[in-house]
């Protein structure tokens, strides 16, 4: 079946000094330089790096699918001992999908929306092997069961849009495994998914390697996921591998300053925020045609030494006593990590002031009218989407309140009500002593608008590409009546740019000349232009690379503390929230399931949903053990939410019929810490922490 190649026992994949370039209008752009990798049967290797570091290009080169303007300009890729560039197009066609399979980031884009899943799955063996329809069908059903999809026979008959994102990604993985490939390439397979769904997929991927003896290349920007799935990893930076080694070696004894920096940027949900401060890497990723001579990380490295680090011809050196652990740095032996104490992003403790924002029993329902005849006959033409159900909490000045939840939990709707883009259906939103729940933004005064502003999620969308940065900031200043005089406005624009640590000449630039992190800084400047008392930040850093994430987060917190602003921080990232929030509100399906101070929420007793969320967060630390809770089922639809407790359909701690019939009471273990759950007090009291730091003699720093 494997075309006689099963007798081959060398490495499945070998890249030797691989160099890949793209040819564009601006000339040749080297995307990957001097890439080496040896992948044995059944082994999985991770490729880690920030966007633009060449991870996906490597995968495309392995598939020989670089497109019209990409080419391998040096080195070789061997698949089972044979140079891939010598394959004919027909041989490549046989290879792809059969011997080498790939799973992409966006499951909806990988599946054909106009074909049933069964058809698409059967296509793979029918195309590559000479088998009957029935055989192909049976294989497809079996593989769907293997990727743990419930009711495979039903899945075979439906179209992609009829199943959830997590299920779609399982189908894509099933499709990749169908012809029993020797090599599986996974390109950010969980990035588009919610964290609780991601946990399930990651578990599945971990099992695959053992079960199918498939070799895997796992591409991700998330070190925590690599830890959970891979044996070895390559850390890439700007087209080169800077460090390579086994997962344990690299995670516990990293040698390259970039790897060190990358770990410093990642928030760890278990860690105490003072013991493990967030340390941003300064500067930004160089563009491929602006790479510095010598070490590409040089300009951002704290250990840069002129004359050593800027010399060309930098190769990988092996770490003694650790075979297979290589690092691309000339100075790694000379770095004294123990005395290296970088300045972390820390929120100095600040005394919270008076209540600025008080939300009392706020509800937001959307009406959807069904104009079908059936609905008219039944009389249920108007249905309600309960986006927010009785939201109550308070935010004080200088306080950061994090609203946490997965997509569809109503976080963004809540932000819209606050901003006046929607009005509340019921309840009160008291802001600076006035109820604004029924006031649309048009009927608010400029002071009211200016004192509540928003930082948006998508840096590529947050600024208008047609106008300069300066003119966009100036418009806000004028609109809120902060300044009216032209010179004063200009001066204020400069002040704002200084505030977000951007050079002043950025005022004349257009958004497309800025990087993602810089745009987000402008977005923050814009929100703070009207001297707001409250800023709503809707996932402000989730679209940024980790090294930039830490810097932008730090900046946001600094400004907040300076101006004693109330920050409503909307996020799905629990580990980040741990670092910057004073209080946390956990939402599920429009309901608040738990709220309290950060320490209260992150330690037991938990709401079962909070517990599952905490367990799902991938953690890039080998010394941490966590309880594994994988949520079953899908997020219920908001048009038809479950009765009783909204979480009852997926809750691992469900106690019985009461969860389905009665709205849970609020359990208050300590004043202010509220958990909406039916569990008995004893159950709450016997809960164990989800994330446990395993004591290691090597790491006595944690008291």
């Amino acid at each position, binding site marked *: 079946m494997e075309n006689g190649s099963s007798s081959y026992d060398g490495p499945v994949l070998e890249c030797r000094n691989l160099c890949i370039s793209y040819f564009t209008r601006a000339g040749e752009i080297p995307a990957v330089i001097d890439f080496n990798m040896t992948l044995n049967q059944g082994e999985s290797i991770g490729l880690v790096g920030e966007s633009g570091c060449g991870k996906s290009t490597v995968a495309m080169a392995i598939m020989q699918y670089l497109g019209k303007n990409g080419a391998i300009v040096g080195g070789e890729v061997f698949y089972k001992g044979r140079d891939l560039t010598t394959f004919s197009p027909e041989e490549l066609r046989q290879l792809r999908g059969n011997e080498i399979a790939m799973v992409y980031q966006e499951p909806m884009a990988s599946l054909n929306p106009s074909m049933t899943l069964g058809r698409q799955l059967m296509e793979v063996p029918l195309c590559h092997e000479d088998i009957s329809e029935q055989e192909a069908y049976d294989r497809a059903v079996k593989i769907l069961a293997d990727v743990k999809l419930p009711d495979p026979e039903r899945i075979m008959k439906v179209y992609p849009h009829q199943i959830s994102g997590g299920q779609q990604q399982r189908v894509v993985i099933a499709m990749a495994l169908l012809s029993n490939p020797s090599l599986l390439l996974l390109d950010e397979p969980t990035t588009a998914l919610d964290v609780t769904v991601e946990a399930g997929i990651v578990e599945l991927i971990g099992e695959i390697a053992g079960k199918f003896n498939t070799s895997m290349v796992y591409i991700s920007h998330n070190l925590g996921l690599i830890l959970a799935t891979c044996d070895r990893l390559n850390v890439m930076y700007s087209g080169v591998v800077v460090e390579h080694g086994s997962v344990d070696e690299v995670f516990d004894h990293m040698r390259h300053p970039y790897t060190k920096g990358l770990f410093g940027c990642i928030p760890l949900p278990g860690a105490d925020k003072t013991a493990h401060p967030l340390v941003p890497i300064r500067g930004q990723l160089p563009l491929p045609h602006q790479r510095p001579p010598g070490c590409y990380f040089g300009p951002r490295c704290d250990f840069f030494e002129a004359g050593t680090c800027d010399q060309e011809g930098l190769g990988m050196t092996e770490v003694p006593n650790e075979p297979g652990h290589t690092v691309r740095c000339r100075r790694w032996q000379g770095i004294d990590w123990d005395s290296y104490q970088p300045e972390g992003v820390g929120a100095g403790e600040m005394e919270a002031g008076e209540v600025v924002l008080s939300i009392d029993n706020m509800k937001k329902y959307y009406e959807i009218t069904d104009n079908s005849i059936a609905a008219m006959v039944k009389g249920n033409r108007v249905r309600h989407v309960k986006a927010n159900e009785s939201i109550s909490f308070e935010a004080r000045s200088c306080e950061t309140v994090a609203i946490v939840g997965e997509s569809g939990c109503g976080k963004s709707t809540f932000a819209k009500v606050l901003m006046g883009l929607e009005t509340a259906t019921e309840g009160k939103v008291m802001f600076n002593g006035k109820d604004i729940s029924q006031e649309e933004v*048009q009927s608010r005064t400029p002071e009211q608008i200016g004192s509540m502003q928003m930082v948006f999620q998508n840096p590529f969308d947050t600024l*208008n590409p047609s*106008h300069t940065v300066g003119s966009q900031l*100036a418009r806000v200043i004028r609109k809120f009546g902060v300044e009216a005089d*032209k010179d004063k406005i200009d001066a204020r624009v400069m002040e704002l740019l200084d505030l977000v640590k951007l050079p002043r000449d950025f005022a*004349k630039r257009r958004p497309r000349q800025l990087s993602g992190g810089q745009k987000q800084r402008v977005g923050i400047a814009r929100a703070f232009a009207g001297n707001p008392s409250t800023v709503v930040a809707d996932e402000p850093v989730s679209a940024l690379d980790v090294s930039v994430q830490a810097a932008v987060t730090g900046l946001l917190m600094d400004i907040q503390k300076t101006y004693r602003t109330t920050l409503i921080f909307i996020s799905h990232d629990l580990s980040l929230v741990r670092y910057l929030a004073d209080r946390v509100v956990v939402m599920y399906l429009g309901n608040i399931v738990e709220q309290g101070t950060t320490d209260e929420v992150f330690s037991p007793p938990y709401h079962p949903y909070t517990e599952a969320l905490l367990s799902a967060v991938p953690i890039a630390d080998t010394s941490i053990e966590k309880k594994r809770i994988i949520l079953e089922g899908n997020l219920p639809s908001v048009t038809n939410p479950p009765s009783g407790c909204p979480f009852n359909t997926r809750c691992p701690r469900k106690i019985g019929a009461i969860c389905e019939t009665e709205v849970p009471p609020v359990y208050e273990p300590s004043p202010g810490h509220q958990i909406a759950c039916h569990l008995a007090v004893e159950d709450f009291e016997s809960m164990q922490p989800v994330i446990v730091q395993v004591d290691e003699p090597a790491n006595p720093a944690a008291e």
Partner: protein
Amino acid sequence: MTDQAISAPRRESSLLRLVKGAALIRESWVGMVGLAIIVFWVLVALLADVLAPFPPNATGAAMTLPGGPAADGSSVHWLGTDHLGRDILSRIIHGSRQVLLYAPLATLCAYIVGIPMGLAAGYRRGLTDDVLSFIANVILSFPVLVLYIIIIATIGASGFNIVIAVTFASAPGIMRIVRGLVLDLRNREYVFAAETRGESAWRIMMIEILPNARGPLIVDSCLRLGYVIITIGTLGFLGLGLPPPDPDWGGMITETRSFITFMPHMVVFPCLAISSLVLGFNLLADGLREVSLRD
């Protein structure tokens, strides 16, 4: 005015951007050919008085073949004369003025009407969208020619009325394009940002949304210019174009089409003139699209 404070630097650089953007067309071979054809016709129109060997309405020997001698014996009718003995080359040269005046004017008017309609429909949605889309659909459901005949027959044939007719028939199509673009752009976060700071709908539509829709609209306007040229030719052919005796490409075809079997040159050359100009605009549109998709 404070408005100028922020618009002054923007205007300067957007002009620069336009020039830079226009320069990109050099990278498209197709676009350059299109541009060359258009520039050629523009020059012809501008220099018509110098280039045309005869006055456009002067009559001489009727139905002279191309290259035939003129009545004065010294000059030549390079493209022959028509059934009334008028020099075809001179009439084509002078006719280009009419086309290049009324086609861009009509297109511009159609955009001036269509863009606000599309902006309003796409941004407001709801009832505004329903009403405007309904009107657009009604107009678009008429066969265009019937529409033209009705309009021109009602208000009379003149250059100005052609502009009105073209505007009336093209604006709904433009409205639909703009509406589609706006439906996408209105969900951008910078539009939300503008809404959350209480900007007026007017400002959001004109300043936040419209500039970002310009790319596809520029390409569309080139294509549309080509269609309008055909339309003006068609109107001329139907006798609804510019009133005689001034030269009009469509009119030249219709006046001489009964002689097509034995004197084809009288019809062929005006046809070629129309096609080449339309081709020029279409190629330019292709080139613009190619260049804009490349980054």
